[in-house]
């Protein structure tokens, strides 16, 4: 494919990467952002700070500051004295990553078909996936478990990943399809002129051009998998295979729930998901970089 550039006929603008890291914005923007951030973070800080208290302090004075500070909750989690934080963090990570990769690959391919091919079954397929959003996982869990037993997958990471991918597809496809449909038809046609097949067009133009959407659904699916509780609970039985949310629950019992330790555990469990987000957040911006220039 030879070098092409996309030019708007009316404005003469060229579709290209734009530098996004400008100077300081208007102070009002920072002020509004600060207010929203304060509201967003207050409950989170409450959770983190209470991880430094103990049950008794929390019962006696719900709004108090740690007195004394109890670093033991965090220490116990990190050193593995309670729970298997690192093991479970690894389980959560690889389950989430495999889920994301599968959802994205399958989702982009299917969305491409729904967005760029015109055929009779198109509406029906779209509706099929959309209907998946309307059925709660909790009802499907028993049939799913029986299915996993019959296929000898129960207890393995796949028994969590496969249903998770399937349940993640609807949202992924609904978000991605408009992104792919929004790619100007002329780009596709130009690609054909250049002798690109539709599949070639898919890989060389569609995938790069839909990056903002792809990264978005990747983040959403990662977070979904990271926090998923029900599927791992029913599918996994071996504690060494547990994911972080299950690990959190293992701290608590009907007879004495270690609220403070749970809060400490969660504060730590949140960090990897945030790292993942901050790494990929930048990719949402500037998704057009280099894509169109070929």
């Amino acid at each position, binding site marked *: 494919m030879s*070098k*092409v*550039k*996309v030019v*708007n*006929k009316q*404005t003469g*603008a*060229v579709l290209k990467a734009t530098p996004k*890291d400008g*100077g300081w914005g208007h102070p009002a923007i*920072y002020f509004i*952002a600060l207010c929203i951030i304060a509201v967003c973070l207050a*409950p*989170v800080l*409450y*959770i983190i700070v*209470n991880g430094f208290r103990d049950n008794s302090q929390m019962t006696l004075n*719900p709004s108090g500051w740690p007195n004394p500070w109890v670093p033991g909750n965090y220490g116990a989690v990190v050193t593995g004295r309670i729970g298997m934080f690192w093991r479970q963090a690894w389980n959560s990570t690889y389950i989430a990553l495999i889920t994301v990769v599968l959802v994205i690959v*399958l989702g982009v*391919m*299917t969305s491409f078909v*729904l967005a760029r091919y*015109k055929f*009779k079954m198109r*509406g*029906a*397929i*779209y509706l099929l*996936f959309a209907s*998946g*959003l*309307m*059925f*709660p996982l*909790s*009802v499907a869990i028993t049939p*799913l478990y029986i*299915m996993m037993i019959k296929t000898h997958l129960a207890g393995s990471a796949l028994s969590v990943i496969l249903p998770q991918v399937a349940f993640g*597809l609807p*949202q992924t*496809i*609904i978000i991605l399809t*408009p992104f792919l449909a929004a790619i100007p038809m*002329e780009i596709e046609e130009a690609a*054909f002129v250049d002798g690109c097949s*539709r599949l070639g067009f898919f890989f060389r133009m569609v995938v790069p051009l839909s990056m*903002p959407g792809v990264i*978005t659904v990747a*983040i*959403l699916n990662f*977070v979904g998998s990271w*926090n998923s509780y029900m599927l791992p609970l029913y599918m996994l039985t071996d504690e060494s295979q547990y994911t972080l949310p299950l690990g*959190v629950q293992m701290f608590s019992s009907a007879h004495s729930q270690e*609220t403070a330790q749970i809060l400490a555990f969660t504060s730590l469990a949140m960090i990897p998901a*945030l790292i993942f*987000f*901050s790494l990929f957040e930048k990719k*949402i*911006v500037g998704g057009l970089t280099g894509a169109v220039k070929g």
Partner: protein
Amino acid sequence: MSETSSAATAAPEVELDWSIESEGGSVVLPPSAYVRPRRNHVRRNLEIIILAGPAILLFLMFVIAPVIVALYYSFYKWKGFGPTNADNFVGLDNYKWTLTNPEFWGAVGHNGIIMVLSLVMQGPLAILVALLLNQKMRGRSLIRVLIFVPYVISEAIVGIGMFLMLQDEGALNKLLGLHVGWLSNPKVAMWTLMFILTWKYLGFAIILMLAGLQGIPEELSEAAAVDGATFWQIQWHIMLPLLKPTIKVWGFLSIIGAMQLFDLVYVIWGQYIATTAGVSTMAWFMAANGRLSGQLGRGSAIAIIVFILSLVVAMIYQRWVLNRDTEGALTEKEED
């Protein structure tokens, strides 16, 4: 079917005429002048199967098949284990039980309120924040990450934290010296829930809007700025209309999310007091009266009812909101 559902593939309303320039010089290709080479249908269908087949197969296996099994169980008084046979076949009793239960209809009403309030409260706020954060400015990445934090925390933990803060004897009342039943007073609890929902899911809306904004070429706003348009004029007349497809997709996901809301209600209010607090939802009602009561057959029936109600709402949304702009946007005729 195909007309309504293709709606979600809505293209931007503002038609942009893009042309392709090759290195040698400008070769403007008006859309109509271009003749697509004839390609054979077998190949096209094969492409469709290769691209969409795996996802459809996986989806049928792990979503649709269990749903069909659940449909089967909904006709039985089934406890979650043991056989289903003539002894515990109850026909439509589970459906009748649900549809004649005033608590269920109370929950349906709550879902309706949540659905509307979510759109009204989260939508404008998310769009505003996304437009602001789409500006070139320092520290933007950090701000985005921080706003996204609530979305990353699992519902279970949000529940524990919020419960500790909002109890009658909890941190918030202690801090403010109030005695408000944030969770227990039926007049207050719904607003508490809406605040928590907005707090938790605003990040989701913002990230979606931001992604949508990236598809809008910056040159449009730059050109408008050159012509003397103010910031807000640009947002209102250029960005917002072009963001419409994204807003509509978010609206769709938000509505379905509101219809299916369960986690936060359950972790904060538990299995029993959501009805008295006035925050019960259909999915909560299903869990409380289904699995958590050891009545999986009944739970399945409630799930089917919720499914049908959600589907009706989704179809109405498709028809009245998504479909309006698609005429003309999807001009290409079906090839077969």
